Protein backbone atom coordinates (compact mmCIF):
# COMPACT_ATOMS: atom_id res chain seq x y z
CA UNK A 1 0.00 0.00 0.00
CA UNK A 2 1.21 3.50 -0.81
CA UNK A 3 1.50 5.88 2.12
CA UNK A 4 2.49 9.07 0.35
CA UNK A 5 1.16 8.58 -3.13
CA UNK A 6 2.34 11.91 -4.47
CA UNK A 7 6.02 11.36 -3.68
CA UNK A 8 6.15 7.59 -3.97
CA UNK A 9 4.86 7.65 -7.52
CA UNK A 10 6.52 10.83 -8.81
CA UNK A 11 7.44 10.46 -12.47
CA UNK A 12 11.22 9.99 -12.73
CA UNK A 13 11.70 13.37 -14.36
CA UNK A 14 9.92 15.23 -11.58
CA UNK A 15 11.69 13.10 -8.97
CA UNK A 16 15.10 13.89 -10.43
CA UNK A 17 14.27 17.59 -10.60
CA UNK A 18 13.32 17.45 -6.92
CA UNK A 19 16.51 15.55 -6.09
CA UNK A 20 18.64 18.13 -7.88
CA UNK A 21 16.92 21.03 -6.14
CA UNK A 22 17.43 19.37 -2.77
CA UNK A 23 21.01 18.37 -3.56
CA UNK A 24 21.98 21.94 -4.47
CA UNK A 25 20.39 23.20 -1.29
CA UNK A 26 22.13 20.52 0.77
CA UNK A 27 25.58 21.20 -0.65
CA UNK A 28 25.17 24.93 -0.10
CA UNK A 29 24.00 24.27 3.45
CA UNK A 30 26.81 21.93 4.55
CA UNK A 31 29.44 24.06 2.82
CA UNK A 32 28.34 26.99 4.96
CA UNK A 33 27.58 25.20 8.21
CA UNK A 34 30.01 22.28 8.54
CA UNK A 35 33.76 23.04 8.46
CA UNK A 36 34.58 19.41 7.69
CA UNK A 37 32.55 19.44 4.46
CA UNK A 38 33.83 22.87 3.47
CA UNK A 39 37.44 21.76 3.95
CA UNK A 40 36.95 18.54 2.03
CA UNK A 41 35.20 20.31 -0.82
CA UNK A 42 37.91 22.96 -0.94
CA UNK A 43 40.55 20.22 -1.07
CA UNK A 44 38.68 18.55 -3.92
CA UNK A 45 38.35 21.92 -5.66
CA UNK A 46 34.58 21.81 -5.83
CA UNK A 47 32.24 24.69 -4.99
CA UNK A 48 28.50 24.45 -4.30
CA UNK A 49 27.89 26.25 -7.59
CA UNK A 50 29.61 23.40 -9.46
CA UNK A 51 26.63 21.14 -8.73
CA UNK A 52 24.50 21.69 -11.79
CA UNK A 53 23.17 18.18 -12.41
CA UNK A 54 22.72 14.97 -10.45
CA UNK A 55 25.75 13.56 -12.25
CA UNK A 56 27.82 16.29 -10.60
CA UNK A 57 27.35 14.41 -7.31
CA UNK A 58 30.42 12.42 -8.38
CA UNK A 59 32.51 15.58 -7.94
CA UNK A 60 31.75 15.65 -4.24
CA UNK A 61 34.08 13.97 -1.76
CA UNK A 62 32.96 10.79 0.01
CA UNK A 63 32.14 10.67 3.69
CA UNK A 64 33.31 7.62 5.63
CA UNK A 65 32.90 6.18 9.07
CA UNK A 66 36.30 7.59 10.01
CA UNK A 67 35.13 11.10 9.11
CA UNK A 68 32.35 10.58 11.62
CA UNK A 69 34.84 9.38 14.21
CA UNK A 70 37.18 12.32 13.58
CA UNK A 71 34.31 14.70 14.21
CA UNK A 72 33.04 12.93 17.31
CA UNK A 73 30.60 13.65 18.80
CA UNK A 74 28.80 16.60 17.18
CA UNK A 75 31.29 17.99 14.64
CA UNK A 76 29.21 17.12 11.59
CA UNK A 77 25.95 18.56 12.87
CA UNK A 78 24.71 21.18 10.42
CA UNK A 79 22.33 23.08 12.70
CA UNK A 80 22.85 24.92 15.99
CA UNK A 81 22.72 22.37 18.80
CA UNK A 82 19.64 24.06 20.23
CA UNK A 83 17.67 22.74 17.25
CA UNK A 84 18.64 19.11 17.91
CA UNK A 85 15.87 17.14 19.60
CA UNK A 86 17.23 13.60 19.38
CA UNK A 87 20.60 11.86 19.39
CA UNK A 88 21.26 8.28 18.33
CA UNK A 89 24.50 6.38 18.00
CA UNK A 90 25.85 3.20 16.49
CA UNK A 91 29.12 1.35 16.84
CA UNK A 92 32.24 3.00 15.56
CA UNK A 93 35.32 1.16 14.43
CA UNK A 94 37.08 1.85 17.71
CA UNK A 95 35.75 2.49 21.19
CA UNK A 96 33.78 5.60 20.26
CA UNK A 97 30.32 5.33 18.75
CA UNK A 98 29.12 7.12 15.64
CA UNK A 99 26.77 9.90 16.71
CA UNK A 100 23.87 11.27 14.72
CA UNK A 101 21.35 14.01 15.50
CA UNK A 102 17.83 14.92 14.42
CA UNK A 103 15.85 18.15 14.42
CA UNK A 104 12.13 18.15 15.06
CA UNK A 105 11.57 18.15 11.32
CA UNK A 106 14.04 15.26 10.86
CA UNK A 107 12.08 13.18 13.38
CA UNK A 108 8.93 14.03 11.49
CA UNK A 109 10.47 13.01 8.14
CA UNK A 110 11.79 9.83 9.69
CA UNK A 111 8.31 8.93 10.98
CA UNK A 112 6.96 9.57 7.46
CA UNK A 113 9.61 7.37 5.89
CA UNK A 114 8.94 4.61 8.38
CA UNK A 115 5.22 5.04 7.76
CA UNK A 116 5.96 4.40 4.06
CA UNK A 117 7.98 1.35 5.11
CA UNK A 118 5.13 0.04 7.27
CA UNK A 119 2.47 0.71 4.66
CA UNK A 120 4.64 -0.76 1.91
CA UNK A 121 4.96 -3.93 3.97
CA UNK A 122 1.19 -4.14 4.33
CA UNK A 123 0.67 -2.65 7.80
CA UNK A 124 -2.21 -0.23 8.38
CA UNK A 125 -4.33 1.50 10.94
CA UNK A 126 -5.85 -1.05 13.29
CA UNK A 127 -2.75 -3.25 13.24
CA UNK A 128 -0.97 -4.19 16.46
CA UNK A 129 2.74 -3.69 15.81
CA UNK A 130 4.90 -5.90 17.98
CA UNK A 131 8.14 -3.93 17.92
CA UNK A 132 10.96 -6.18 19.06
CA UNK A 133 13.74 -4.00 17.67
CA UNK A 134 15.95 -2.75 20.48
CA UNK A 135 15.03 0.61 21.94
CA UNK A 136 17.81 2.98 22.94
CA UNK A 137 20.72 4.54 21.10
CA UNK A 138 20.14 2.03 18.31
CA UNK A 139 17.79 3.57 15.73
CA UNK A 140 15.77 0.41 15.09
CA UNK A 141 13.37 0.52 18.02
CA UNK A 142 12.33 4.16 17.96
CA UNK A 143 12.40 4.31 14.15
CA UNK A 144 9.88 1.49 13.79
CA UNK A 145 7.90 2.86 16.73
CA UNK A 146 7.33 6.30 15.20
CA UNK A 147 6.46 4.81 11.81
CA UNK A 148 3.90 2.46 13.32
CA UNK A 149 2.28 5.29 15.27
CA UNK A 150 2.25 7.47 12.17
CA UNK A 151 0.15 4.96 10.23
CA UNK A 152 -2.22 4.77 13.18
CA UNK A 153 -1.29 1.29 14.35
CA UNK A 154 -1.10 0.35 18.03
CA UNK A 155 2.53 -0.18 19.00
CA UNK A 156 3.76 -2.65 21.59
CA UNK A 157 7.22 -1.28 22.44
CA UNK A 158 8.44 -4.64 23.68
CA UNK A 159 12.07 -4.27 22.55
CA UNK A 160 14.33 -7.34 22.37
CA UNK A 161 14.76 -10.36 24.63
CA UNK A 162 12.63 -12.56 26.88
CA UNK A 163 11.11 -14.54 24.02
CA UNK A 164 8.57 -16.47 26.11
CA UNK A 165 7.05 -13.25 27.39
CA UNK A 166 7.04 -11.87 23.85
CA UNK A 167 5.03 -14.85 22.67
CA UNK A 168 2.59 -14.59 25.56
CA UNK A 169 2.02 -10.94 24.68
CA UNK A 170 1.58 -11.80 20.99
CA UNK A 171 -1.13 -14.25 22.00
CA UNK A 172 -2.85 -11.98 24.52
CA UNK A 173 -2.57 -8.64 22.70
CA UNK A 174 -3.19 -10.06 19.25
CA UNK A 175 -0.02 -8.76 17.57
CA UNK A 176 -0.50 -8.59 13.81
CA UNK A 177 2.79 -7.09 12.63
CA UNK A 178 6.21 -8.17 13.87
CA UNK A 179 9.22 -5.88 13.59
CA UNK A 180 12.63 -7.27 14.58
CA UNK A 181 15.80 -8.71 13.11
CA UNK A 182 15.20 -11.73 10.86
CA UNK A 183 17.28 -13.98 13.12
CA UNK A 184 15.18 -12.97 16.10
CA UNK A 185 12.04 -13.85 14.14
CA UNK A 186 13.43 -17.35 13.67
CA UNK A 187 14.32 -17.53 17.33
CA UNK A 188 10.72 -16.64 18.21
CA UNK A 189 9.60 -19.49 15.93
CA UNK A 190 11.94 -21.85 17.80
CA UNK A 191 10.62 -20.74 21.18
CA UNK A 192 7.00 -21.05 20.00
CA UNK A 193 7.74 -24.61 19.05
CA UNK A 194 9.25 -25.30 22.47
CA UNK A 195 6.21 -23.76 24.16
CA UNK A 196 3.83 -25.71 21.97
CA UNK A 197 2.37 -22.53 20.47
CA UNK A 198 1.11 -22.92 16.92
CA UNK A 199 2.14 -19.79 14.96
CA UNK A 200 -0.94 -20.20 12.79
CA UNK A 201 -3.10 -19.65 15.88
CA UNK A 202 -1.63 -16.16 16.30
CA UNK A 203 -2.92 -13.09 14.49
CA UNK A 204 0.51 -12.31 13.03
CA UNK A 205 0.19 -11.43 9.38
CA UNK A 206 3.40 -9.73 8.33
CA UNK A 207 6.92 -9.09 9.55
CA UNK A 208 9.25 -6.21 8.69
CA UNK A 209 12.76 -7.43 9.14
CA UNK A 210 16.09 -5.65 8.87
CA UNK A 211 19.21 -4.42 10.68
CA UNK A 212 21.21 -7.46 9.62
CA UNK A 213 21.93 -9.33 6.41
CA UNK A 214 19.63 -12.21 5.54
CA UNK A 215 18.76 -14.31 2.56
CA UNK A 216 15.90 -15.62 0.45
CA UNK A 217 16.36 -18.95 2.18
CA UNK A 218 15.75 -17.27 5.54
CA UNK A 219 12.72 -15.48 4.13
CA UNK A 220 11.18 -18.76 3.03
CA UNK A 221 11.89 -20.28 6.42
CA UNK A 222 10.44 -17.35 8.38
CA UNK A 223 7.32 -17.20 6.20
CA UNK A 224 6.72 -20.92 6.54
CA UNK A 225 7.44 -21.20 10.23
CA UNK A 226 5.56 -18.10 11.37
CA UNK A 227 2.82 -18.22 8.70
CA UNK A 228 3.43 -14.59 7.70
CA UNK A 229 4.74 -12.47 4.86
CA UNK A 230 8.33 -11.44 5.54
CA UNK A 231 9.50 -8.13 4.12
CA UNK A 232 13.07 -6.77 3.99
CA UNK A 233 13.71 -3.24 5.20
CA UNK A 234 16.95 -1.28 5.13
CA UNK A 235 18.58 1.64 6.82
CA UNK A 236 21.61 2.74 8.77
CA UNK A 237 21.89 5.30 11.50
CA UNK A 238 24.49 7.38 9.65
CA UNK A 239 21.94 8.01 6.92
CA UNK A 240 18.72 8.05 8.97
CA UNK A 241 18.12 4.71 10.66
CA UNK A 242 15.54 2.31 9.24
CA UNK A 243 13.42 3.95 6.58
CA UNK A 244 16.04 4.38 3.84
CA UNK A 245 14.65 1.62 1.65
CA UNK A 246 12.00 -1.07 1.97
CA UNK A 247 10.40 -3.85 0.00
CA UNK A 248 6.81 -3.64 -1.12
CA UNK A 249 4.62 -6.56 -0.15
CA UNK A 250 3.38 -6.82 -3.75
CA UNK A 251 6.75 -7.92 -5.11
CA UNK A 252 9.09 -8.62 -2.19
CA UNK A 253 11.85 -8.23 -4.71
CA UNK A 254 14.31 -5.42 -4.10
CA UNK A 255 13.92 -2.55 -1.66
CA UNK A 256 12.48 0.74 -2.93
CA UNK A 257 14.93 3.48 -2.01
CA UNK A 258 13.08 6.57 -0.79
CA UNK A 259 14.84 8.59 -3.42
CA UNK A 260 13.16 11.89 -2.66
CA UNK A 261 15.13 11.76 0.63
CA UNK A 262 18.20 9.73 -0.23
CA UNK A 263 20.26 9.82 -3.38
CA UNK A 264 21.78 6.37 -3.99
CA UNK A 265 24.92 5.65 -5.98
CA UNK A 266 26.73 2.42 -6.60
CA UNK A 267 30.50 2.75 -6.72
CA UNK A 268 33.49 0.54 -7.25
CA UNK A 269 34.77 0.19 -3.68
CA UNK A 270 38.39 0.15 -4.82
CA UNK A 271 38.48 3.06 -7.25
CA UNK A 272 35.56 5.10 -5.92
CA UNK A 273 34.23 5.43 -9.51
CA UNK A 274 30.47 5.53 -9.97
CA UNK A 275 29.32 2.35 -11.70
CA UNK A 276 26.68 2.27 -14.44
CA UNK A 277 23.09 1.73 -13.24
CA UNK A 278 22.41 -1.93 -12.58
CA UNK A 279 25.96 -2.95 -11.75
CA UNK A 280 26.88 -4.37 -8.41
CA UNK A 281 29.09 -2.40 -6.05
CA UNK A 282 29.17 -0.41 -2.83
CA UNK A 283 26.09 1.58 -1.90
CA UNK A 284 26.64 5.28 -1.28
CA UNK A 285 23.97 7.64 0.02
CA UNK A 286 23.56 11.38 0.08
CA UNK A 287 20.76 12.63 2.31
CA UNK A 288 18.65 15.15 0.46
CA UNK A 289 16.39 16.53 3.16
CA UNK A 290 17.98 15.99 6.55
CA UNK A 291 18.69 19.04 8.67
CA UNK A 292 20.74 18.11 11.73
CA UNK A 293 22.93 15.38 10.31
CA UNK A 294 23.08 15.47 6.54
CA UNK A 295 25.68 13.29 4.87
CA UNK A 296 27.34 13.74 1.52
CA UNK A 297 28.10 10.51 -0.34
CA UNK A 298 28.27 8.32 2.75
CA UNK A 299 30.01 5.04 2.01
CA UNK A 300 27.82 2.36 3.56
CA UNK A 301 30.23 -0.52 2.81
CA UNK A 302 27.14 -2.53 1.91
CA UNK A 303 27.20 -4.31 -1.42
CA UNK A 304 24.13 -4.09 -3.61
CA UNK A 305 22.95 -2.98 -7.03
CA UNK A 306 20.11 -0.78 -8.23
CA UNK A 307 17.12 -2.20 -10.06
CA UNK A 308 15.62 0.37 -12.43
CA UNK A 309 12.72 -1.63 -13.86
CA UNK A 310 9.29 -0.37 -12.86
CA UNK A 311 7.45 -2.20 -10.13
CA UNK A 312 3.85 -3.42 -10.01
CA UNK A 313 3.30 -1.58 -6.72
CA UNK A 314 3.36 1.72 -8.57
CA UNK A 315 6.37 3.22 -6.84
CA UNK A 316 8.73 4.97 -9.21
CA UNK A 317 11.68 4.71 -6.85
CA UNK A 318 14.52 2.48 -7.96
CA UNK A 319 14.98 -0.62 -5.91
CA UNK A 320 18.19 -1.76 -4.30
CA UNK A 321 18.86 -5.46 -4.33
CA UNK A 322 18.98 -7.18 -0.96
CA UNK A 323 22.42 -6.42 0.58
CA UNK A 324 24.67 -9.34 -0.24
CA UNK A 325 27.82 -8.48 1.67
CA UNK A 326 30.19 -5.84 2.93
CA UNK A 327 33.39 -4.29 1.71
CA UNK A 328 34.83 -4.14 5.23
CA UNK A 329 35.08 -6.55 8.15
CA UNK A 330 32.07 -5.27 10.06
CA UNK A 331 29.99 -7.99 11.67
CA UNK A 332 26.34 -7.66 12.47
CA UNK A 333 25.58 -9.64 15.58
CA UNK A 334 21.94 -9.77 16.64
CA UNK A 335 21.43 -6.54 14.72
CA UNK A 336 24.32 -4.75 16.39
CA UNK A 337 27.22 -3.55 14.27
CA UNK A 338 30.51 -4.82 15.58
CA UNK A 339 33.94 -4.16 14.19
CA UNK A 340 36.73 -6.60 15.07
CA UNK A 341 38.86 -3.52 15.80
CA UNK A 342 36.48 -2.58 18.63
CA UNK A 343 37.06 -5.96 20.23
CA UNK A 344 40.80 -5.62 19.74
CA UNK A 345 40.71 -2.16 21.29
CA UNK A 346 38.85 -3.53 24.29
CA UNK A 347 41.21 -6.47 24.77
CA UNK A 348 44.28 -4.27 24.50
CA UNK A 349 42.92 -2.10 27.29
CA UNK A 350 42.72 -5.05 29.65
CA UNK A 351 46.06 -5.29 31.31
CA UNK A 352 48.25 -8.09 30.09
CA UNK A 353 46.00 -9.25 27.32
CA UNK A 354 47.91 -9.55 24.10
CA UNK A 355 46.20 -8.98 20.81
CA UNK A 356 46.08 -12.66 19.99
CA UNK A 357 42.42 -13.31 19.85
CA UNK A 358 39.86 -14.79 17.54
CA UNK A 359 36.17 -14.06 17.29
CA UNK A 360 33.98 -16.99 16.39
CA UNK A 361 30.45 -16.15 15.38
CA UNK A 362 27.92 -18.91 14.96
CA UNK A 363 24.18 -19.22 14.94
CA UNK A 364 22.43 -21.64 17.26
CA UNK A 365 18.67 -21.85 17.60
CA UNK A 366 18.52 -18.95 15.14
CA UNK A 367 20.45 -16.67 17.47
CA UNK A 368 23.93 -15.37 16.91
CA UNK A 369 26.42 -16.54 19.47
CA UNK A 370 29.88 -15.16 19.92
CA UNK A 371 32.88 -16.85 21.38
CA UNK A 372 36.11 -14.95 21.83
CA UNK A 373 39.27 -16.98 22.12
CA UNK A 374 42.12 -15.22 23.89
CA UNK A 375 45.59 -16.68 24.04
CA UNK A 376 46.97 -16.93 27.55
CA UNK A 377 50.29 -15.14 27.65
CA UNK A 378 52.73 -15.26 30.55
CA UNK A 379 51.57 -11.84 31.65
CA UNK A 380 48.05 -12.98 32.34
CA UNK A 381 48.76 -16.55 33.32
CA UNK A 382 48.43 -17.48 36.97
CA UNK A 383 48.78 -20.63 39.00
CA UNK A 384 45.40 -19.83 40.51
CA UNK A 385 42.19 -20.80 38.76
CA UNK A 386 40.23 -17.87 40.15
CA UNK A 387 42.62 -15.31 38.65
CA UNK A 388 42.14 -16.72 35.16
CA UNK A 389 38.42 -17.16 35.63
CA UNK A 390 38.06 -13.57 36.82
CA UNK A 391 39.95 -12.38 33.77
CA UNK A 392 37.60 -14.32 31.50
CA UNK A 393 34.57 -12.85 33.26
CA UNK A 394 36.02 -9.35 33.07
CA UNK A 395 36.47 -9.69 29.32
CA UNK A 396 32.93 -11.07 29.00
CA UNK A 397 31.53 -8.10 30.91
CA UNK A 398 33.38 -5.56 28.80
CA UNK A 399 32.49 -7.37 25.61
CA UNK A 400 28.86 -7.07 26.54
CA UNK A 401 29.18 -3.29 26.42
CA UNK A 402 30.29 -3.55 22.81
CA UNK A 403 28.12 -6.41 21.60
CA UNK A 404 25.09 -5.53 23.75
CA UNK A 405 24.68 -9.26 24.08
CA UNK A 406 26.56 -11.89 26.06
CA UNK A 407 29.54 -13.68 24.67
CA UNK A 408 31.69 -16.46 25.93
CA UNK A 409 35.40 -15.98 26.46
CA UNK A 410 37.59 -19.01 26.11
CA UNK A 411 41.20 -18.90 27.22
CA UNK A 412 43.40 -20.86 24.88
CA UNK A 413 47.04 -21.87 24.80
CA UNK A 414 49.72 -19.68 23.25
CA UNK A 415 50.19 -19.87 19.49
CA UNK A 416 47.04 -21.94 19.09
CA UNK A 417 45.24 -19.25 17.09
CA UNK A 418 46.05 -19.77 13.48
CA UNK A 419 48.35 -17.18 11.97
CA UNK A 420 48.74 -16.69 8.28
CA UNK A 421 51.80 -14.73 7.18
CA UNK A 422 52.11 -13.42 10.69
CA UNK A 423 48.62 -11.97 10.68
CA UNK A 424 46.08 -13.89 12.69
CA UNK A 425 42.68 -14.64 11.24
CA UNK A 426 40.57 -12.52 13.55
CA UNK A 427 37.07 -13.52 12.68
CA UNK A 428 35.54 -16.84 11.85
CA UNK A 429 31.94 -16.43 10.82
CA UNK A 430 30.27 -19.82 10.71
CA UNK A 431 26.76 -18.47 10.20
CA UNK A 432 24.90 -19.65 7.15
CA UNK A 433 22.32 -17.14 6.07
Amino acid sequence: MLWDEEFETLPREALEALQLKRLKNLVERVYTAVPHYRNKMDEAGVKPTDIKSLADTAKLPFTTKSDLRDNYPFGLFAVPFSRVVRIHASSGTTGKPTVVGYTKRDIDSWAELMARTMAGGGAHQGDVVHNAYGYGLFTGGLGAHYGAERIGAAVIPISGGNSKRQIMIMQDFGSTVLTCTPSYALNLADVMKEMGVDPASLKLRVGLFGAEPWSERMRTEIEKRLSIDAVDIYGLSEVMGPGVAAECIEQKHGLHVFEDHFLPEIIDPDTGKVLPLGEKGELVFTTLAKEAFPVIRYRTRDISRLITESCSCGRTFYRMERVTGRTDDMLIIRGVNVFPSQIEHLLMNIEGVEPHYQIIVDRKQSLDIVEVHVEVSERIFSDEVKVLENLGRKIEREMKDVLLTSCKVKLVGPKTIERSEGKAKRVIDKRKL
Partner: protein
Amino acid sequence: MKVEQISVFLENKSGSLADVTEVMARAGINIRALSLADTTDFGILRLIVNDPEETTAVLKKNGFTVGKTEVIAIEVPDRPGGMARILTAIKGRGIDVEYMYAFVQVSRKNAIIIFRFDDLDKAIAALQAEGVKILTGEEVQAL
Protein backbone atom coordinates in the same frame (compact mmCIF):
# COMPACT_ATOMS: atom_id res chain seq x y z
CA MET B 1 62.01 -22.32 53.15
CA LYS B 2 60.19 -21.68 49.92
CA VAL B 3 59.99 -24.09 47.06
CA GLU B 4 59.71 -23.10 43.43
CA GLN B 5 56.66 -24.48 41.67
CA ILE B 6 56.17 -24.47 37.92
CA SER B 7 52.70 -23.95 36.54
CA VAL B 8 51.65 -24.64 32.98
CA PHE B 9 48.50 -23.52 31.15
CA LEU B 10 46.63 -26.39 29.57
CA GLU B 11 43.81 -26.10 27.13
CA ASN B 12 40.99 -28.44 27.90
CA LYS B 13 41.47 -30.80 25.00
CA SER B 14 42.65 -34.33 24.78
CA GLY B 15 46.38 -34.83 24.71
CA SER B 16 47.41 -31.52 26.19
CA LEU B 17 48.68 -33.05 29.44
CA ALA B 18 50.59 -35.66 27.46
CA ASP B 19 52.21 -32.91 25.39
CA VAL B 20 53.68 -31.31 28.51
CA THR B 21 54.91 -34.51 30.07
CA GLU B 22 56.47 -35.70 26.81
CA VAL B 23 58.52 -32.51 26.54
CA MET B 24 59.68 -32.93 30.11
CA ALA B 25 60.48 -36.61 29.64
CA ARG B 26 62.67 -35.84 26.62
CA ALA B 27 64.56 -33.27 28.70
CA GLY B 28 65.09 -35.84 31.45
CA ILE B 29 63.11 -33.92 34.04
CA ASN B 30 61.84 -35.73 37.07
CA ILE B 31 58.49 -34.75 38.55
CA ARG B 32 58.43 -34.73 42.34
CA ALA B 33 54.84 -33.75 42.85
CA LEU B 34 52.01 -32.44 40.74
CA SER B 35 48.45 -31.32 40.84
CA LEU B 36 46.03 -30.43 38.10
CA ALA B 37 43.42 -27.75 38.66
CA ASP B 38 40.75 -28.04 36.03
CA THR B 39 37.78 -25.99 34.93
CA THR B 40 35.42 -26.70 32.06
CA ASP B 41 37.60 -24.67 29.72
CA PHE B 42 41.18 -24.98 30.82
CA GLY B 43 43.52 -26.56 33.31
CA ILE B 44 46.51 -25.43 35.32
CA LEU B 45 49.20 -28.03 35.85
CA ARG B 46 51.33 -27.36 38.92
CA LEU B 47 54.62 -29.17 39.24
CA ILE B 48 57.45 -29.59 41.67
CA VAL B 49 60.44 -30.81 39.69
CA ASN B 50 64.08 -31.65 40.24
CA ASP B 51 65.23 -28.74 38.05
CA PRO B 52 62.82 -25.78 37.85
CA GLU B 53 65.12 -23.60 35.69
CA GLU B 54 65.59 -26.25 33.05
CA THR B 55 61.90 -27.17 33.12
CA THR B 56 60.83 -23.57 32.58
CA ALA B 57 63.29 -23.14 29.73
CA VAL B 58 62.35 -26.32 27.93
CA LEU B 59 58.60 -25.80 28.27
CA LYS B 60 58.81 -22.21 27.04
CA LYS B 61 60.91 -23.32 24.13
CA ASN B 62 58.13 -25.72 23.20
CA GLY B 63 55.53 -23.00 23.22
CA PHE B 64 53.85 -23.46 26.59
CA THR B 65 52.76 -20.66 28.87
CA VAL B 66 54.73 -21.20 32.03
CA GLY B 67 54.60 -19.47 35.37
CA LYS B 68 56.66 -19.73 38.54
CA THR B 69 55.22 -19.51 42.02
CA GLU B 70 56.67 -19.97 45.46
CA VAL B 71 55.00 -22.53 47.63
CA ILE B 72 56.02 -24.27 50.83
CA ALA B 73 56.48 -27.98 51.40
CA ILE B 74 55.61 -29.34 54.79
CA GLU B 75 56.48 -32.70 56.14
CA VAL B 76 53.56 -34.20 57.99
CA PRO B 77 53.59 -37.38 60.05
CA ASP B 78 51.68 -40.00 58.08
CA ARG B 79 49.07 -40.62 60.77
CA PRO B 80 45.66 -39.33 61.81
CA GLY B 81 45.72 -35.68 62.86
CA GLY B 82 48.89 -34.80 60.93
CA MET B 83 47.12 -32.50 58.54
CA ALA B 84 44.76 -31.04 61.14
CA ARG B 85 47.68 -29.79 63.19
CA ILE B 86 48.96 -27.70 60.32
CA LEU B 87 45.66 -26.16 59.42
CA THR B 88 44.94 -25.41 63.07
CA ALA B 89 48.25 -23.51 63.27
CA ILE B 90 47.12 -21.31 60.34
CA LYS B 91 43.49 -20.89 61.33
CA GLY B 92 42.44 -17.55 62.75
CA ARG B 93 45.59 -15.75 61.66
CA GLY B 94 44.19 -14.18 58.55
CA ILE B 95 46.10 -16.53 56.25
CA ASP B 96 44.23 -18.27 53.44
CA VAL B 97 45.10 -21.46 51.63
CA GLU B 98 44.91 -20.80 47.89
CA TYR B 99 45.41 -24.47 47.09
CA MET B 100 47.32 -27.50 48.31
CA TYR B 101 48.21 -30.98 47.25
CA ALA B 102 49.83 -33.90 49.00
CA PHE B 103 52.04 -36.80 48.14
CA VAL B 104 53.27 -39.73 50.15
CA GLN B 105 56.83 -40.92 49.72
CA VAL B 106 57.26 -44.65 49.91
CA SER B 107 60.81 -44.23 51.18
CA ARG B 108 59.83 -41.89 53.98
CA LYS B 109 57.57 -42.28 56.92
CA ASN B 110 56.01 -38.90 56.47
CA ALA B 111 53.66 -37.36 53.92
CA ILE B 112 54.63 -34.16 52.15
CA ILE B 113 52.07 -31.46 51.55
CA ILE B 114 52.59 -28.56 49.18
CA PHE B 115 50.81 -25.38 50.24
CA ARG B 116 50.15 -22.14 48.45
CA PHE B 117 49.13 -19.52 51.01
CA ASP B 118 48.11 -15.97 50.18
CA ASP B 119 50.82 -14.79 52.60
CA LEU B 120 53.71 -17.23 52.56
CA ASP B 121 55.95 -15.42 55.07
CA LYS B 122 53.23 -15.11 57.64
CA ALA B 123 52.37 -18.78 57.18
CA ILE B 124 55.98 -19.86 57.56
CA ALA B 125 56.30 -17.92 60.82
CA ALA B 126 53.06 -19.39 62.17
CA LEU B 127 54.01 -22.94 61.25
CA GLN B 128 57.52 -22.67 62.63
CA ALA B 129 56.12 -21.35 65.90
CA GLU B 130 54.14 -24.58 66.12
CA GLY B 131 57.23 -26.65 65.37
CA VAL B 132 56.01 -27.85 61.98
CA LYS B 133 58.81 -29.09 59.73
CA ILE B 134 59.12 -27.10 56.53
CA LEU B 135 61.31 -28.54 53.82
CA THR B 136 63.78 -26.42 51.84
CA GLY B 137 63.82 -26.30 48.07
CA GLU B 138 66.92 -28.49 47.93
CA GLU B 139 65.35 -31.06 50.20
CA VAL B 140 62.24 -31.29 48.04
CA GLN B 141 64.13 -31.45 44.76
CA ALA B 142 66.35 -34.17 46.16
CA LEU B 143 63.44 -36.37 47.26
